[in-house]
């Protein structure tokens, strides 16, 4: 029973990691209508910026918020500088540019801050609840919920949020009603980069900071977003926790799988979910017009 409880809690803790990044994935999806494969590396790079500022003597929270702002501007700049000239290029070419960005951020981080793992401070106190779940994990859980709330309010209650959704869903019509579609895209990039930065700074204390820290996590983040429904921030968070828990349960209780095929099982489950609910568990069904 103890083992069961612990594995559930660890699943939730891992789930919080996935959920946090999944939020950034959903954010960019709302803005540009597809995935950004460089999301993980951008978050990693932001985390390094924060680490460098803390190492330079800034207090945690100053560095934390400064990083969010820098990431926002960085995301905005990437859209304006790199993607604006490519608006008419095919989607597949965009994906290649994402891959290019992954390579650039990964390599730069390694060259600037080397490849050894680094400790990243947690804003929450050390210790754990009876050895079951770390305080940082609990804190991260609430940060994720806070982020979710903020995103929800942004899309539901602000004009900009609604305009952004409109711009992504139907750029032509959105343009006709006076929405500056290009800037909406850039804004989406900026916000996604900022959320990614928060995710990175929350994840790094657990997995340690190094250039490849997002390699596996991003895949789980995508999976979480897709299982939950890519159009729904709440679904993405739920998807994150679900993936975390299922993965741990399968690894613990199905002997043939063990830890060896944990990832494979998680992915098979995701594909299975998609087969029965192609828009994710909480996603809206999209009706196509001929």
């Amino acid at each position, binding site marked *: 029973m103890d*083992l069961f409880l612990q594995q559930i809690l660890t699943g939730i803790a891992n789930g919080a990691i996935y959920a946090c990044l999944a939020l950034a994935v959903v954010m960019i999806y709302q803005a540009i209508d597809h995935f950004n494969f460089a999301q993980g590396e951008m978050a990693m790079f932001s985390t390094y910026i924060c680490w460098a500022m803390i190492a330079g003597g800034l207090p945690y929270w100053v560095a934390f918020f400064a990083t969010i702002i820098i990431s926002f501007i960085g995301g905005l700049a990437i859209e304006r500088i790199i993607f604006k000239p490519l608006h008419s290029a095919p989607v597949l070419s965009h994906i290649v540019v994402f891959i290019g960005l992954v390579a650039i951020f990964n390599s730069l981080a390694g060259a600037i801050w080397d490849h050894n793992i680094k400790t990243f401070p947690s804003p929450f106190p050390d210790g754990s609840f009876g050895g079951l779940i770390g305080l940082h994990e609990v804190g991260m859980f609430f940060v994720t919920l806070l982020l979710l709330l903020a995103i929800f309010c942004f899309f539901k209650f602000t004009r900009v949020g609604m305009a952004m959704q409109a711009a992504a869903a139907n750029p032509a019509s959105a343009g006709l009603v006076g929405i500056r579609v290009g800037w909406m895209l850039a804004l989406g990039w900026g916000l996604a980069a900022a959320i990614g930065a928060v995710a990175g700074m929350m994840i790094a204390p657990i997995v340690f900071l190094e250039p490849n820290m997002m390699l596996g996590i991003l895949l789980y983040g995508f999976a979480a977003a897709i299982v939950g429904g890519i159009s729904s921030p709440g679904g993405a968070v739920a998807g994150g926790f679900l993936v975390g828990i299922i993965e741990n349960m399968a690894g613990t209780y199905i002997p043939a799988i063990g830890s060896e095929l944990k990832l494979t099982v998680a992915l098979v489950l995701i594909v299975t979910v998609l087969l029965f609910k192609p828009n994710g568990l909480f996603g809206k069904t999209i009706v196509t017009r001929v």
Partner: protein
Amino acid sequence: MYNGRKLTFGLAAIAAMGMVATSAFADKMYGPGVTDDSIKLGNTMPYSGPAAAYGQIGKSTAAYFDKINKENGGVNGRKIEFISLDDGYSPPKTKEQVRKLVEQDEVLLIFESLGTPTNSAIHNYMNQKEIPQLFVATGATKWGDPENFPWTMGWQPSYQTEGQLFGAYIMENVTDPKVAILYQNDDYGKDYVHGLKEFLGDKADSIIVAEESYEVTDPTINSQMIKLKDSGANVFFNVSTPKFAAQAVKKFRELNWDAVFLNNSVSNSVGAVYKPAGLENSKGIVSLMYYMDITDPANFESEAYKKWSKFMDEYYPDGDKTSAFTAYGYLVGQTMEQVLKQAGDNLTRENVMKEAANLDLELDMMLPGIKIQTGPNDFFPIEAMMPVEFNGEKFSSLGKVVSVN
């Protein structure tokens, strides 16, 4: 394009000092890549991609050759040209790069190439072509098989040997041992487990109560740690790379697991593991070492450390002086230097291989009593290690050097 290649060391304009060849009239025999004033050595390393942290090994070896080229005019009057290429830890790429080194750059030999799958990809090629594949930077056991692969040799103690030594440690020091193992799901992890089981023999099944593996893509190993603790083991054997080892140390303490923590030498590093995981958390970890702990202040005053530190400052100033990798590259570089010294003017591939299998070398950064010894039938240069315990600041020895022989 061609001359833009990094780590190819140009000839510094310093004349060879005092190199009056004693055997000036002896026949000079040269293999490919050797001239009267240079020797070309080839190497592959992951300088990019997920395994890029190991690239420090190649960089420090390159720096070491830089040093002997500048200070001693190379080896026996020949400058070392160390051509180190990036393979990104991908076996097909290794094969491509090594073929380039052998066929286009015409190197004398390949040495210190990193990684088991990558070296496996060229294992047959090297032996068919009869080119030395020396001091590969991996601990797999298969590198010490002179009968079937007379052109390949490892350097560090093999993972399997270390697994056996840990087995010996457990049997001697723990009463009624119950062992739980965390290992990386690849050859490296499995070799350790295999070595441990081999030592325990029939008792392995009753002593090892839990085994859990992880993939390098796993974000954390927390789930595995919980399962391992749940097995009720009183010995935890950690076979993971630095990032996961640091996570394991942290989780081990968080779970209040009362067990002996045995850590493999791959991640036995204060800078890369114990410091990130918390020095307090790392107290009491037992490991095996074969060369000096470069982060221990007690060593800072030793001649060997000072020499190394000076070398790092001068030739590899960007290098991390708390990373065990930089010392590793320095030591392998010295071993190679010795082989070339012994080979004298007979620098054919056969003779270099013969001299590599004829080493009896003590390096100043190795722990006392640990030597590099090889013979025609012994392709395992280092086979002894010293059990040590980390006390939160430095390692303290737990008795004497152990070896399987």
